[in-house]
């Protein structure tokens, strides 16, 4: 079954111009317009580059890390980084209170943060979009249930519930992903719900319905592709939020457990020495900060490029 009207849906707002015979010069396709905007968007390029680099570091951690991030050497405790008074090139970022190579721990830390952030955002994206699209598309009592669920979610203090759940179901990577995934789907639901409400009366949905498409097909094959850009924007912001909250949980001792090299946990461990070895909290904090800035800028950039009128 073909759906020739897809292009004129709100996702293809530039396609509408192409259909107008008054245009003599062939206009750019939506994709070309977006690519042009993307190339000139400093924030997007910066965000994508940094996130790309951190992802590469995370994937190739075993090849990049100069030492075993878990290997303790008590004779080499608290060696300063290479720019410090007694720094050596053997431990570029120095060592921590157990004599573990700090650079190697930072490199492996990227793995934990990205894994938790990505899969938690994926989980909440699936939950939130499913709820939002269903509620917005069907309206009526189904929508009321969705709105009620969103309200309940918003009323829960996220860090408090996450801390409590983490003591109940544990602080493994999987449980952190599930906890954060189930606690941060609200923004997905709010955004997809209002988009679905706008789209459900549009012509291409009516056409799909007339062509005999079922409800499920309409939601997944017609609505979903048209809200995907906005979902990606929300997903990037949500991923940043998940990484930040996971770091908070680890910092408070209820997230990633020792001896894992998580940035939040490293800051907590470095806190005892922070007054005379500040690099122990500065380095992992900076890593976390730069990663979160990059993800936020990428998200803002994707929104500017796909829907510039939505900048806020």
């Amino acid at each position, binding site marked *: 079954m073909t759906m020739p009207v897809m292009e004129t849906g709100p996702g293809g707002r530039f396609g509408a111009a192409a259909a107008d015979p008054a245009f003599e010069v062939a206009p750019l396709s939506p994709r070309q317009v977006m690519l042009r905007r993307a190339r000139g968007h400093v924030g997007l390029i910066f965000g994508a580059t940094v996130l790309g680099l951190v992802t590469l570091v995370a994937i190739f951690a075993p090849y990049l890390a100069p030492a075993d991030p878990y290997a303790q050497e008590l004779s080499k405790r608290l060696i300063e980084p290479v720019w410090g008074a007694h720094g050596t090139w053997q431990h570029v970022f120095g060592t921590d209170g157990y004599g573990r190579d700090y650079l190697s721990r930072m490199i492996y830390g990227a793995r934990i943060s990205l894994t938790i952030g990505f899969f938690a955002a994926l989980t909440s994206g699936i939950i939130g979009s499913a709820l939002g699209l269903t509620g917005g598309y069907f309206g009526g009592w189904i929508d009321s249930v969705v*709105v*009620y669920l969103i*309200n*309940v979610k*918003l*009323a*829960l*203090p*996220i*860090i*408090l*519930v996450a*801390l*409590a*759940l983490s*003591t*109940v179901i544990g602080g493994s990577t999987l449980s952190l992903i599930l906890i954060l995934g189930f606690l941060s789907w609200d923004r997905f639901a709010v955004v997809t719900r209002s988009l679905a409400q706008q789209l459900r009366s549009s012509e291409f949905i009516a056409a799909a319905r007339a062509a005999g498409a079922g409800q499920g097909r309409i939601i997944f094959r017609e609505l979903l592709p048209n809200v995907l850009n906005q979902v990606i924007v929300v997903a990037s912001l949500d991923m*940043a939020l998940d990484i*930040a909250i996971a*770091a*908070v949980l680890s*910092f*408070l*001792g*209820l997230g990633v457990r020792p001896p894992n090299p998580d940035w*939040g946990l490293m*800051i907590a461990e470095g*806190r005892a020495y*922070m*007054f005379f070895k*500040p690099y122990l*909290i*500065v380095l992992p*904090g900076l890593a*976390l*900060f730069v990663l*979160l*800035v990059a*993800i*936020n*800028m990428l998200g*803002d950039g994707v929104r500017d490029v796909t829907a510039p009128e939505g*900048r*806020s």
Partner: protein
Amino acid sequence: MLRFFVRRLIIAVLVAITVSIIGFALLRASGNLAVILAGDRATPAEIAATAHKYGLDRPLPIQYLDWAGRLVQGDFGRSLFTDEKVSDLIAERIGVTIGVAIPALIIALVISVPLGMVAALRANSWVDRTALAVAVFGQAIPLFWLALVLIFVFGVMLRWLPISGSSTPAHFILPSVTLAVAVLPPFMRLTRTGMIDVMNSDYIRTAWAKGLKPGRVLFKHALRNAILPIVSLAAVSLGFLLGGSVVIETIFALNGIGQLAYQSILRVDFPVVQAILVFVSLCYIVLTLISDLINAKLDPRIRLG
């Protein structure tokens, strides 16, 4: 207005009931209460007796109704460790938490609203870019890390401010500033978009065309409408500040409800955790209800739509 109020109130009550069920479920998921209450060396018979004494051998729905019934009367239960009333524990500490939350909100508003307004009026100027940079910075910086950096700079290097405890007003400066950084970005963004939308609207063009002075157009006509979403956000943020102060209170050793919640979580004192959870949620529900009513009062489209 009454219709709107009643409908909104029903939703608020339903949400409150659901949150209390979640809180109750969390307490039950944390372990067998009778075993904890009976102590480490209790025999199975003693555990059974404790369970019976506290009514833990009854069906869960009955236990929930019993607990919720006492909750409605203001009885939040007792701590498993100190046997103090949780309502007393919260009452003792809520002052410190509010003492951090309100200044944080004020600092955030005082900086973000003017900044957002100027950014909107001078879109793409250096002010706009600075405002955006401030928003990105505040959104991305991990709060607990910012707190540690501020402690290091202002408490240890410069020795300007106290870094731990809550004995003088000066103790509240660093925690409030840290929290303000976290709540500032959404206010800034919302003011900016709100102002841009409003400034492009027909009635502002009319106001200019009538020859009104810029100050009157901006503050009497434009800001009045742009401020509506800010009111809602302020309510939501205050709810967030009450619940999100866990980290800040822990780092700055402030004896507020966030610190109480954290310590209770660590020692599995779940009646306290559950009570704080329900309390913070209720605060949020009431605050959003009030802000919705204010908005409906100010904007007829909301209550009639």
